[in-house]
């Protein structure tokens, strides 16, 4: 494999890992808008350990995952007790806080970043993806996976079935953050230099788009989303200049036509052009007599 192909494959692998990580929280219907923050946490943790303490990359990645999981559990605990609006706002703001903190932290080079990381190999990335896929494979066939789907479908009904909705969501969020953290560690040791600005809102949105494009129904949908969105700008050079507009439009068009993503069975009509009337009656609190 020549160096260019290897770089592309690693980039693709990291994108897949990010997509799979995000899929876990999306499977419970909880969308984070700041997953790049967990990437940053993973990337910086691993980078500090390998560069300043000369730990091995594999061990550092484990610690990265753990750190990101703790951060994820904390943010999840604050946000997931509240409505999805709060989740959106809190994750959005959290990513910004992480960026500001890293920017003003001299130990990690502040805004000019940290460098000297190396060691991400195709094998390492493939191994991580393998582990995650095995996990998701068994998850999809377990009652735990079923409870994720139930929460995504209808939280009130899930509570009536005895599911601890908040606890399960926080757990999924933490696992998701852990995988994202590991992906961040891998990406840091691929790009040689990391700066806080790499982990801004555009990165978060890209991760969301992987999963939204592929759909939350099956985890391999997220893989398809990641592959498509990573390869498109490589195949079509001109997209490089228009990627923001393209991604923005993709969000808008997808949400109107296929909010459940390209892949996935739907109990409704194939395209959602007709679902207009429901809009006004979308406020479904548990409560008063009808």
């Amino acid at each position, binding site marked *: 494999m020549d160096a260019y192909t290897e770089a592309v494959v690693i980039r693709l692998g990291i994108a897949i890992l990010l997509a799979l990580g995000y899929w876990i929280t999306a499977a419970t219907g909880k969308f984070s808008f700041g997953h790049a923050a967990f990437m940053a946490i993973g990337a910086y943790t691993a980078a500090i350990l390998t560069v300043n303490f000369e730990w091995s990359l594999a061990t550092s990645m484990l610690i990265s995952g753990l750190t990101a999981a703790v951060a994820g559990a904390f943010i999840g605990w604050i946000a997931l*007790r509240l*409505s999805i609006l709060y989740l959106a706002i809190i994750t959005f703001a959290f990513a910004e806080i992480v960026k500001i903190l890293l920017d003003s932290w001299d130990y990690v080079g502040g805004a000019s970043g940290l460098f000297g990381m190396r060691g991400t190999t195709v094998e390492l990335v493939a191994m991580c993806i393998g582990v995650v896929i095995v996990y998701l494979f068994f998850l999809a066939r377990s009652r735990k996976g079923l409870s994720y789907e139930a929460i995504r479908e209808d939280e009130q009904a899930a509570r009536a079935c005895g599911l601890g909705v908040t606890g399960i969501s926080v757990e999924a969020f933490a696992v998701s953050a852990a995988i994202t953290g590991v992906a961040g560690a891998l990406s840091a040791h691929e790009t040689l230099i990391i700066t806080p600005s790499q982990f801004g809102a555009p990165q978060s949105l890209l991760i969301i788009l992987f999963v939204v494009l592929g759909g939350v129904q099956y985890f391999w949908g997220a893989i398809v989303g990641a592959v498509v969105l990573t390869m498109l700008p490589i195949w079509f050079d001109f997209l490089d200049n228009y990627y923001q507009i393209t991604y923005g439009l993709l969000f808008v068009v997808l949400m109107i036509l296929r*909010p459940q993503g390209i892949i996935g069975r739907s109990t409704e009509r194939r395209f959602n052009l007709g679902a207009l009337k429901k809009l006004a009656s979308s406020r479904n609190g548990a409560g008063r007599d009808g």
Partner: protein
Amino acid sequence: MLIQQLVNGLLLGTTFALIALSFNLVVGALDRLNFALGETAMVSAICGALFLSQLDVPFVLAFLAALVVGALIAGITFLLSFRFVSADYHTAPILSSLGVGLVLTSLVTRVLGSDQRRVPTVLKDVRIEVGPLRIVGDQLIILVVAALMTVLLYIFLNRTAWGMAIRGVSDDSDMTGLLGVPVQRVILLTFVISGTLAGASGLLTGLSFHTVSPFTGFETTLTALMVIVLGGLGNITGGVVAALMIGVIETLTVAYLSATYRDLIVFLLVGITLVARPQGLFTRNTGVVGRV
């Protein structure tokens, strides 16, 4: 110069109040967030700035243009991200409006370039000095216009039929619909008003710093979100009070600590609020936890 800083903080807070009102109106009407409002404010501000510097029109006209642009964009956002998006997917409008924001930012940078635009001083010779306190003409404009718009909004919501309809829809859209109110049109109106407020906030913020940049959309959204969380989601009055608070806190932090801590202190405050009083500082309603 504590007093001067307090006044500066309140002035900053008034522009925050406008954008917070803008967000809160949508939250109230639909229980959804329009994440494109920050970019809406940015586009309005840039249009206003172009009118002022290129065409040399009076400020009033440029301001009206900003309002119209804001209203238009918000109306389009409503259609693209809310009206035709299935309500079964609670996150869909958020994602879609984020997409609209992305498109707006990149359109502006493509069409008009990514330079900052200057907003010229409007009232050059006016200034008020009371003891050590000094307020220049443009600050007066910001204060008066922002206060006027807030008051007008209150009157509109409480005294006019359409305003009552908006409040009705935000209380219970099903019931209001049954009473014969055209719910969809009321929601569109809410978006348009919300866009107008965003436009006003954008140009007034530009006026206070005498510059607007096409990359401020995201930042504006973030500030507005912090304000409305602090004041309680959908709580109009709470949002205004929280906006003034955050304006003062930010100004004082920059003046007496350092600019790096400005955002962190606000985030910390909001974080504590979320853990201790998730319904916001100024909302009594405790039902927020169960809300979707």
